[in-house]
Structure formats: structure tokens, C-alpha cells
């Protein structure tokens, strides 16, 4: 006599694996804006929001960051902001610059913006994988 799931013995492990992966990976929308005036930083904003709708599934590039096991994504990205900005800036970046020169003053303002994109964030025990989805 065959067991109840004898025809498909891999269904239950596969379902468990899919559930584990889907719980381990979350999708977040992350955007960044940096403003410098006269080549001096004056403002910096990092926005993070959990995705409420499904994101695209095609992975474009991956960043791996060290993780201490308990901190939230906001704290992690604040700590590793430099690496994240460099990683995301290579993909796409919007730059806007305005210079004004008058008889007695020069003013320069630069804004660079990382467009808000969906990233898949996978928390592991001692590292986090951030994947840009396109």
C-alpha cells in the first residue's frame, strides 16, 4: 500500500522551502537624496518603506552587508549608507546642478537622487543580501 503522498514525496519539503524563503526575504522601496551647497553637504535623506504590492522579480545586482542579527533595516542602512549609496548609484542616479554667479557671489547647489526602487532584502544570521529588482 502506498502512502498518502507517495506520488509526490517532495511536495511538503518544497512547500516548506518556499515558505521559508518567502518569510526570509522582504521587499522594500528605498530612495535617497543628497544635497550639497558650495560642495559642502547640507542635506541627506534616506527613505525606506516596506512594499505593499508585488515587486518585479528580475534581479539586477546584489549587495551583501554584514549583519549583527538584531538591528532593523533602517539602522543597518544608516550604518552602511556609504556602501549602499555607491552600490545603488552605479545602477541609476539623477543629478541636478544649479550655479549662480553674480558680481560678488558664487552659489552652487547640487542634488543627487537615487530613484526610489524596489529591493529584495534577505536577512541571514550574520549578513544581509540586498537585491535590486527590475
Amino acid at each position, binding site marked *: 500500500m502506498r502512502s498518502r503522498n507517495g506520488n509526490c514525496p517532495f511536495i511538503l519539503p518544497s512547500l516548506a522551502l518556499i515558505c521559508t524563503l518567502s518569510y526570509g526575504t522582504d521587499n522594500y522601496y528605498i530612495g535617497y537624496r543628497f544635497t550639497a551647497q558650495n560642495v559642502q553637504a547640507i542635506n541627506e535623506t534616506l527613505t525606506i518603506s516596506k512594499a505593499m504590492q508585488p515587486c518585479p522579480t528580475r534581479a539586477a545586482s546584489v549587495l551583501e552587508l554584514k549583519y549583527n542579527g538584531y538591528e532593523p533595516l533602517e539602522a543597518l542602512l544608516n550604518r552602511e549608507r556609504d556602501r549602499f549609496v555607491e552600490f545603488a548609484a*552605479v545602477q541609476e*542616479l539623477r543629478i541636478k546642478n544649479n550655479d549662480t554667479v553674480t558680481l560678488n557671489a558664487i552659489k552652487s547647489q547640487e542634488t*543627487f537622487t537615487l530613484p526610489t526602487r524596489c529591493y529584495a532584502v534577505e536577512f541571514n544570521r550574520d549578513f544581509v543580501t540586498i537585491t535590486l529588482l527590475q
Partner: protein
Amino acid sequence: MKLSAALATAFSVSALYAGFFSPDGTDEPKIKCVYSGTDGSCVEPILKAENELVITVTGQGVAPSVTSSPAQAYALAKRAAMADGYRQIAERVKGVQVEGQDTIKNMMLQQSSTKTSVEAIVRGANLLNTTFKEGLCEVEMEIALSYSRVLH
């Protein structure tokens, strides 16, 4: 017969001089520069279908006067330098919009202002090198332009 041969020779020499035929047999005239300086040297190279054009810039940034730590000062100076580098890339690839205004009253210059602006989306620029010395951060950046990247 001799007259026609002489005419044909004269025509081909003048055509060669005008650039219709190149000596190496290719029909396309060779253009090496977009702009030529007064001494005839290349100022800006042109992007061609068969090769990549690499543009290298150096961005500079200064740390804010008030920061909570030297590490924060370094990070912010680096980001300001990156913004400057991206601005230079955008200026060289896309160009700058320039707007000038002079006000003259009683034959005297009262006010003069020049505004320049750049706005662009940059993809695929790489950070090559970063140096930080006496509060000034310099980043060397490059972008490789090719037909396949421009068209995608």
C-alpha cells in the same frame, strides 16, 4: 587620349584632397574631434560605433563645519565629492544650459548674473579612487560610453 588621362588624374587628386576618398580605401571620412582648439588639437573625442569612450573626472567635496565625528565628516565630504563628480560627468556628456543677464543703467553695468544648470540621469559611473586630505575629499570617477549602453 592624353587629355582625358590628365583630366582623370586631376579629378582624383582633387577628390582625395576634398576627402571624398581616403588613402586607405575606406569611404568614410575620418573625424577625430568634435571641437578643435585654436592649435588644431582635439578637445572632445567623439563616440563611434566600434569603440568605447571613457570619460574620467575628479570630484571635490568639503566636510560640513559641524559634524558629530570625523567619520561622519569624511562620509559627507565623500558624498559631496561624488555629487560634484556626477555633475561633471553630466556636464561633459549632456551639456550645460547657460543663462546670462546684465543690467546696464546710464551706460554703467549695474548687475550681472550668470546661471548654469545641468540635469541628467547617469547610469554605470564607477568610483575609481578616493583621497581625503585636510578636509577636502577628492573622488576619481569614470564612465564608459558605448553605443550599446547609450541605446539601452
